[in-house]
């Protein structure tokens, strides 16, 4: 017992000495609220891994100060998210916050950040009203206000004149349809069919039959990869061969695993491709694979990686002695930030303008295309 106690004391002393050495440089703290347990834990765990990669690089780059990230588990539960937000706000050393994962928790926490004046950058909150809450909210995920017109122009350029649109019955789905249709009509195209379906629909065949009857040149779709796989498989079963375009929401390796050969030829936008030869991307992919058993990173961890780097860059510009106000102002100035999900620029509305990539599924892989 005595030796154990002694060992513990030595360990504590060593830890104390270690932390004392680390204190040589001034420490800047960031908060990251994310679901580390619960139903959405897989996303939060990925975010933490991505954030740790970004942070380790930043701290080993010989900066005049050191950054610490405080991770707090929100369980994707608004009441925990709000409590965490208060906790972060209380800690005077924290100058910026990342997260949360879902729009709901991000927005409940945003009420606290708005009132206390704390910059908040979410990697994934896609709610149309999120960034409108106050000048303190930022996000680095594209919204349909940017993606819809981009896809409309792309499809017009590919020579499609008559297009059918389907999307899931959510507010996100509503924005998919409206943003695309407005631009496509403006460009002289024609929307011959437009309908919503409930997420997780098992049988798309009646919908596909209705679309086929309208004989569109192409179909534009707003769904996530699970629904996308069902839709593509059932289209093949019915022998319908109309080209399909989709948003970056369907961009997921799981789509190809689930739909197999039926996913071939689907066109979609993406902001992150693990196969992108850009050294930044390859660097991140290698670091990620080393930490997660050789699995390719998806779009969400890449979003988190960029969000952390954007925040770190803002902190660095706001140094020395960064404050919440300074970090917010520097975040707002983010321009053409070179990340793994492309270049990010925050507009005056604190929404990101991103360079979108055009991709197609070819031989079981997402491949970048010119048109």
């Amino acid at each position, binding site marked *: 017992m005595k030796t154990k106690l002694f060992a513990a004391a030595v360990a504590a002393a060593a830890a104390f000495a270690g932390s004392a050495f680390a204190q040589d440089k001034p420490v800047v703290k960031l908060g990251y609220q994310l679901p580390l347990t619960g139903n959405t834990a897989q996303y939060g765990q990925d975010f933490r891994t991505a954030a740790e990669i970004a942070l380790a690089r930043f701290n080993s780059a010989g900066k005049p100060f050191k950054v610490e990230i405080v991770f707090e*588990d929100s369980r994707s539960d608004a*009441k925990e998210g709000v*409590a965490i937000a208060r906790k972060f706000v*209380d800690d005077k050393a924290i100058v910026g916050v990342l997260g949360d994962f879902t729009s709901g928790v991000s927005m*409940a926490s945003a009420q606290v950040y708005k009132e206390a004046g704390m910059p908040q950058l979410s990697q994934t909150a896609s709610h149309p009203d999120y960034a409108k809450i106050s000048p303190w909210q930022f996000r680095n995920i594209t919204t349909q206000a940017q993606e819809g017109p981009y896809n409309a122009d792309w499809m017009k350029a590919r020579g499609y004149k008559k297009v059918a649109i389907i999307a899931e019955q959510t507010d996100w789905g509503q924005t998919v349809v409206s943003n695309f249709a407005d631009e496509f009509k403006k460009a002289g195209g024609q929307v011959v069919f437009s309908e919503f379906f409930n997420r997780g629909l098992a049988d798309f065949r009646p919908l596909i039959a209705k679309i086929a009857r309208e004989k569109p040149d192409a179909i534009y779709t707003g769904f996530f990869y699970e629904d996308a796989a069902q839709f593509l498989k059932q289209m093949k079963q019915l022998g319908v061969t109309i080209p399909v375009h989709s948003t970056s929401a369907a961009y997921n390796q799981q789509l190809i695993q689930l739909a197999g050969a039926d996913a071939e030829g689907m066109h979609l936008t993406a902001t992150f491709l693990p196969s992108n030869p850009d050294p930044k991307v390859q660097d991140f992919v290698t670091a990620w694979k080393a930490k997660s058993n050789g699995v390719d990173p998806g779009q969400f961890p890449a979003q988190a990686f960029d969000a952390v780097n954007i925040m770190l860059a803002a902190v660095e510009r706001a140094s020395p002695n960064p404050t919440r106000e300074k970090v917010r102002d520097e975040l707002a100035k983010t321009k053409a930030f070179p990340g793994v999900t492309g270049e990010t620029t925050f507009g005056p509305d604190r929404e990101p303008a991103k360079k979108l990539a055009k991709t197609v599924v070819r031989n079981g892989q997402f491949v970048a295309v010119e048109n």
Partner: protein
Amino acid sequence: MSDRFRARLIAIGFLALVFVAAPAALTAFGKSYYWQVADLALIFALLAGSMHLVTGVAGLLQLGHAAFYGVGAYAAALLATKAGLSLAFTLPLAGLSAATIAVLVALPTMRLVSIYFAVATLAIGQMLYLIMLNWVEVTKGPNGIMLFSGMKFAGLDLSRPLPTYLVVAATVCVSLFVLHRLSHSYYGNALRALREDDQCADAMGVDTVRLKIEAFGVSGFFAGVAGALWAHTAGFISPPDFSFQTSILILAMVVVGGLGSLPGAVLGAFILILLPEALRPFGDFRNIAVGVVLFASILFVPKGLIGEVSALDFARRQLAGAWRRDGAGAEIGWR
């Protein structure tokens, strides 16, 4: 007389704790995080207290309580954003909306007993949840509702931590007092008779169906009030706040504290809100730790931390709800 005196002393002590000692301590800490957790613990104390009436006292296993909490929160949020009403109106109206819905859904389920009733409440909870999620025109569906107005009352801005806490604490204390009077009285005894043997109670002249519906309505009312408090303190609500998990959390509070015991329900709420927050430093293990605490409490104190018998004893003897005595000093019934 001395009974009365002691009861006053306890009441004053309790109020001093909630309205003087707790705010003083929270102010001294100067952390808005503690205020937030205190508000949350109080809101869930009210939720657990309201479920206690139906599940603990009347013995109707309720698996959809969070839905009434949600109805109250949505009613308050919609009244505040669409009609611009202040807290003074949204609180009671949210309670009334939730009570109305509770009575409406209680009517067809009153002939169901035990597990069948529980499953029916589960279904009702899910239905109300799906309505919040899918009735996009009214509830804005998954996008939730933002209350820009926050905590306002008669032109006063109550959004600072102290005023918010006082509003929440006052509302919860008044509500809990009403629940206390309902469960520790002849009325509460009638509900308990219903729980023990509803046919016998019926034979004794107790209108069991009416009692059940009333208990359901009152319970829904206070759940709705708690919902309004959550909506105003959080400033943003969305359907996941009122999902099945929340119902189970409230049920766990009531069971851990002691089925049929109001102080137990309040204590259970405090533990299940404060413990996960206190265990934050343990990171990923905190949920396991909370689970172990729950399991141990069911294993070692199956009647709850403050069991029904001791709660009733406390209410009777300490709160001067003691049996009234006749001239000869024999106890004859509730005061």
